């Protein structure tokens, strides 16, 4: 059970990838070290989705793509009553999905 989310820094060129690739998309390097995904950024886009997958009891989910300071982008759940494109948020980690067997932790965004 991981309560941290990791991106992957290429030890050859330093480029950070999220998700993981086994060959660096920048330099073709094959060695990486995990770096925690955490910090602040801005909402690039968001949606309230009512067409949900299994494992959710809620009526809708608010999802967003956030561009973190430094340029890396991440997808996650937006916990903000007043969402807006460009709004500053910071990452937290919480339960993002609860299949019957075990909860899954992932990125959530709250107003910065």
């Amino acid at each position, binding site marked *: 059970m991981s309560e941290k989310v990791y991106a992957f820094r290429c030890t050859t060129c330093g480029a950070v990838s*999220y*998700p993981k690739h086994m060959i660096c998309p920048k330099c073709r390097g094959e060695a990486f070290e995990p770096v925690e995904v955490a910090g602040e950024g801005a909402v690039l886009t968001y949606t*309230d*989705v009512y067409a949900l997958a299994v494992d959710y009891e809620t009526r809708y989910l608010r999802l967003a793509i956030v561009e973190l300071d430094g340029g890396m982008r991440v*997808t996650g759940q937006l916990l903000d009553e007043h969402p807006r494109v460009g709004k500053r948020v910071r990452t937290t980690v919480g339960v993002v999905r609860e299949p019957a067997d075990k909860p899954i932790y992932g990125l959530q965004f709250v107003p910065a």
Partner: protein
Amino acid sequence: MRPVYIVGAGMTRFGRSEWPLVDLAATASLAALHHANLGKIPVDAVVVANMGAGRVNRQTAIASALVDRLSLWPAAAESVENGPASGASAVKVGYQAIASGMADVVLVTGVEMMRAVDGLEATDFVASLSHPEVEYIYGVTLPSLAGLFARLFMERHGVERRHLALVAIKNHDNAMKNPYAHIHQPVTMEGILTSPEAVVNNPPIAEPLHMFDCCPVSDGAAAVVLATQEVAAKIGAPRVLVAGIGQATDTHAVHERQDPTDLKAVRLASAAAFERAGLKPSDIDVAELHDAFTILEIAESEAAGFFKPGQAHKAIERGETQLTGKLPINPSGGLKAKGHPVGATGVAQIVELAWQLRGEAGGRQVAKAKAAYACNFGGFGNNVVATVLRKEER
């Protein structure tokens, strides 16, 4: 490479299947085989496009099952699973078999029976194509990826909800003229956007997208018979040439794309298809685009090269993409109204275009159609197959 022709095309009506999975595939296949009228010429290979039978219908190896149902032994057979691009991928596999000399006649059948399960399960089955570690776990579904894309694209290019509604209205109108379409229901701007009732008629699915921006969940099958020039000549088929196929991939996670509004795989696949065909976007008379969501028809028509970035919604406003316009898009009704049985869709696009080029499209016939283009959009744009067809004069 040997030239490859489409000598037969057929499909079932999309919607809810009255047959089991393999019978559904066989029904479309028979229609295509009858259309081709091969006589004693054997089918050398069968390629089946399908995304979810293993999960949704609990049946695997359906290409072998289809050969058996049609008594086509000892034809070679394989299934192609390539997400929502399975259909055009299967056509590509059939094309390669003939072009390379390995086969003279190939039956390509796309089939999907998604209504065997409830809506939640069907949505989840399609969502399983998203990135498992950085998308799916958050509750990402295809509508949500489309919603995220739409908000960004609309803001950047000044596209409004009324432009999306114009796409839906056009495609529903076209579907009224297509007996094979899932949905036969005309819609109006008042009904889905501007009247007080529109809020009820057209609820949000993934903001800013609403119900009438999204394709239905459909069962259905579509099939084409591909053949060499020799076979086409022997059976006297109209010369519908597979002039060029292009395919390209992009990052699995949408957020990782340098510009998430740039449908790069559509751009690259289309450019490759046009180059192989020796044609330009301006040569195309009719197009079938992958409008699983209305916004995608707009974005794909730009990425394919029919309109400059930010111009497609203005062309739609001017009526240029209607049946009688400069470039009719989705005369079949598109995924929006014809329906979207995922594995069948890419084949059904080719079926519609083959009919259009043969002048057999009935009330939705595009006048003097000589060149056609299809975009089959897999994943959320991470695997795209573009196909260009051309009618050869004899």
